[in-house]
């Protein structure tokens, strides 16, 4: 779900950067300087995990994991995703440089939503409910990402309307996969080291 350079109209790229700067400034304020190495280490794990491909039938999809980043890093998820995307652009040439702001909004805002939703576990700390939340957060963050992608496409050119709808629908299998992965990873962490999720 990357938008590359040249696809959207210039105003949208600038808007993307404006939103990203505001959210980054706000979320970085919540992060202390000493936490930077810890966030970096987790960011690099997510970077590496996003290289894992899951085979479905004839094709394979790579993992996004933005919901899981939100669950584990909280507010720091946004800068973490921004840096992940920056490195993906500069190392692999995926995405782009002018589209970085837009892409960070597409991937990062749903991570913050997943973080907020996962906080609901405090209302009902039963394991089955926590696992349900993990499943829900994993899936819904991909849904929100595809919706944000569509919004940017339509704002750029209104002719993108049908293409945007196709983009949301074609992400449904990925939503399910990410939901399941998120569920399994949280289940694993709850069993092995539950403090990580507190």
């Amino acid at each position, binding site marked *: 779900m990357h938008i*590359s*350079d*040249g*696809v*959207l*109209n210039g105003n949208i*790229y*600038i808007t993307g950067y404006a939103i990203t700067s505001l959210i980054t*400034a706000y979320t*970085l304020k919540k992060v*202390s*300087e*000493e936490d*930077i*190495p*810890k*966030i*970096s*280490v*987790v*960011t*690099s*794990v997510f*970077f*590496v*995990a996003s*290289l*894992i491909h*899951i*085979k*479905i039938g004839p094709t394979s999809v790579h993992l996004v994991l933005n919901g*899981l980043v939100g669950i*584990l890093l909280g507010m720091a998820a946004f800068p*973490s995703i921004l*840096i992940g995307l920056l*490195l993906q652009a*500069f*190392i692999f*040439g995926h995405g*782009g*440089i*002018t589209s970085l702001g837009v892409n960070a909004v597409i991937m990062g805002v749903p991570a913050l939503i997943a973080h907020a939703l996962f906080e609901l576990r405090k209302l009902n700390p039963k394991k089955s409910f926590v696992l349900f939340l993990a499943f829900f957060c994993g899936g819904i963050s991909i849904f929100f990402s595809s919706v944000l992608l569509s919004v940017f496409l339509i704002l750029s*050119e209104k*002719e*993108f*309307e*049908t*293409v945007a709808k*196709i983009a949301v629908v074609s992400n449904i299998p990925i939503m399910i*996969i990410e939901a*399941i*992965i998120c*569920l*399994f*990873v949280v*289940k*694993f*962490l709850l069993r092995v*080291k539950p403090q*990580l999720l507190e």
Partner: protein
Amino acid sequence: MHIELDKYAHINSHVHHWDTRFKIVSLVGLIVGFSFINKIVLLPFILIISFLLVYFSRLPARYLMKRLEYIIPFLFLAVFLLSITSGGEILYSFKILKVYKEGLIIGSVIFIRSIASILIFFVLLETSPFLQTMKALQALKIPSKLTGLVFFTYRYIYVYLEELRKMKIALRLRGYNNNSVLHSLRTNSAIIGSLLLRSLEQAERICTAMVLRGYSGNVQESSRFSARASDYVKSLITLVIILVIIIIQKTMP
């Protein structure tokens, strides 16, 4: 998985010798300029500008083509979908398939604009060593917390790539062959889970070790950038090009 960096970063060319800070600002400006273009007559010009830049950078054209190959199918798909779904004046219709004029025009504009922008982005990536580009970003006054994140993350990517490689070998030795989807999801989740577990435990130790060695959240990299007259000239030329294409775009009917 192998990450290959800086393969062509040490060629002797005018673009390689351009101060990385100036190069980032100028070329990003050029890509932003391109994204405002939507007049068909201007498209050949932006394509020529990007080809010229590739020519001056002396990067092997075959290598760039190979990198473009991954993106072109997506762009074709986007143009195709746009031209059959946009609505408007029908150019051509075959049974239920209708090709719309508006969609085809916007699709082609996006196609050319993307190719030109991606080529320039590749020139930006390939003409300076990766770490120098990151240091240039730091020199451009990006908040220190963000640059700290970039450098640490970059360092640890290699550590976890190696861990992932070992885990995959261990899996194969135990007879894992990616059969059912659910099984593969379960196995990959376990991989991600244990990578996270190792990393978070390691993070605590790394943090303590760094604080003991005097880390207080600020990594002062001495930046050794010094701009020469030629850097200003190159950036000035780029700026003029950006202004000219934007002015032509704005004044055209």
